[in-house]
C-alpha cells in the first residue's frame, strides 16, 4: 500500500451488499469511535472518495443531527443507491456492533468496576484521542485547494479550536460565529472566481 495514493483513480461501492459488508467491517474495527477507521478505509484503502470530498461530507455529517458516522454512512449509501443504499449503510454500521455490545452487556455487565477493566478503558480512551487528532492532521492537506486560501483556513481553524478547545464555549456559538464568517468568505471567493473570464459558472 503506497503512502500517498492521492493520484490513483477513485473507486465506488459495487453493490448494496458491498456497502453493508464494508461498513460492517469498518464499524467492528472502531473501538472508541469509528471516524479514524472510516477515514483510513474509505479514503486511503478503498478510494471511494478523496480527502477533499471526505472533509466536505464530514462537515455535513457532523452538522446534521444524529450520530455523525452513521450520517456519513447514510449519505454515502444514499448517493450511490438511493434510499436502499442509505439503509444498507446504516444497517452495516449498526447491526453487527449492536450484537457485539449486547453480548458484552450480558456477559460482562459486572466487570466494568474491576480495576483492570477501568485501566483498559483509560488506555483505550487515550489511544482513541490520538486517532482523532491524527485524522484532523491528515485532513489539513485537504484544505490546499480550498477557495478561501490556506491562510484564511488556518485562521478560521485556529479561531474555532480556541473557542471550542481552549475557551470551552458551547459548540453552537462557535459554529454560528466562525461558520458564518467562513461561509460568507467562501461564497465571496467562489463568486469572484465564477465572475472571472473562464471561471466556473
Amino acid at each position, binding site marked *: 500500500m503506497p503512502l500517498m495514493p492521492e493520484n490513483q483513480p477513485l473507486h465506488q461501492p459495487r453493490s448494496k451488499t458491498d456497502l453493508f459488508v464494508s461498513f460492517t467491517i469498518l464499524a467492528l474495527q472502531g473501538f472508541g469511535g469509528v471516524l479514524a477507521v472510516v477515514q483510513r478505509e474509505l479514503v486511503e484503502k478503498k478510494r471511494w472518495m478523496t480527502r477533499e470530498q471526505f472533509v466536505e461530507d464530514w462537515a455535513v455529517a*457532523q452538522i446534521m443531527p*444524529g450520530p455523525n458516522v452513521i450520517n456519513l454512512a447514510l449519505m454515502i449509501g444514499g448517493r450511490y443507491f438511493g434510499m436502499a443504499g442509505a439503509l444498507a449503510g446504516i444497517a452495516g*454500521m*449498526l447491526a453487527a456492533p449492536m450484537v457485539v455490545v449486547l453480548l458484552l452487556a450480558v456477559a460482562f455487565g459486572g466487570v466494568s468496576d474491576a480495576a483492570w477493566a477501568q485501566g483498559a478503558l483509560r488506555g483505550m480512551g487515550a489511544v482513541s484521542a490520538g486517532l482523532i*487528532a491524527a485524522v484532523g492532521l491528515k485532513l489539513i492537506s485537504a484544505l490546499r485547494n480550498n477557495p478561501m486560501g490556506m491562510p484564511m483556513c488556518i485562521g478560521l481553524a485556529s479561531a474555532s479550536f480556541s473557542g471550542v478547545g481552549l475557551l470551552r464555549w458551547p459548540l453552537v456559538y462557535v459554529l454560528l460565529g466562525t461558520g458564518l464568517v467562513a461561509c460568507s468568505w467562501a461564497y465571496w471567493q467562489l463568486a469572484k472566481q465564477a465572475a472571472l473570464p473562464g471561471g466556473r459558472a
Partner: protein
Amino acid sequence: MNPVLQLTPADWLDLFKHFASLSLLAVGGAITAAPEMHRYLVDETAWLSEAQFTSSIALAQAAPGPNILFVALMGFNVGMNAGAGLGGGWVSVGLASLGVVISMVGIMLPSSILTYTATRWAHQHRDKLGIRAFKSGMAPIVIALLLSTSWLLTLSHNQPASDWPLYVLTALTTLVVWRTQVHMLWLIGLGALLGALGWV
C-alpha cells in the same frame, strides 16, 4: 433481585417519544443529550438505575462500533428491568429486544430522515454557489473540531502529575497514525494492555 418494573404500552410509547424528541436536538452526537436522558430515565421515571446508566455509556464506548449504541444498551436495560433480569428467561429477552428496538428507532429515525432528505437536496444542487460555499467554508472548522475533540478528551484527565503517561500515549498514537499505516487495532490493543497493567 430487583422488583420487576411494570411498564404499560403508554410507558413504552413515552420511551419512544423521549428518544425521538432528543434525536433532532443531538447535534454533535447523542452523547450531548446524555444529561437529559439521565434526568428522564434515572431521576424521573427510575426505569434505569444509576449504575445501569453509567455502564451503558462506558460499555458502548469500549465496544467496537458507533458510540450511539449506548442508547441501545439503555433500551436493553429498561427491557431487562421490565422483565425479571437475566433470570426472567425468554420474557426478559423479548422485553429487552423491544427496549432496544424502541430506543434505537426513536433516536435514529427523525435525524436520519432529516439528514437523508437534506443531503439529497444538497447533492442535487451541489453546483449552486451557496452549497459549495457552505462545504468549503465549513472544511477548516470541522478539522478544528476534530482537533478540539481530541484535546478535550485528553484534558478530561486533569491530573498532570499522574495522568502524564496518558498524554504521552495520545501524542504517540497521533504521530504513528498520522505518519504510518500501522493498523489501528494494534494501537487500541496496546492502549488496553498498558491500561489494564496500570502503566498509564
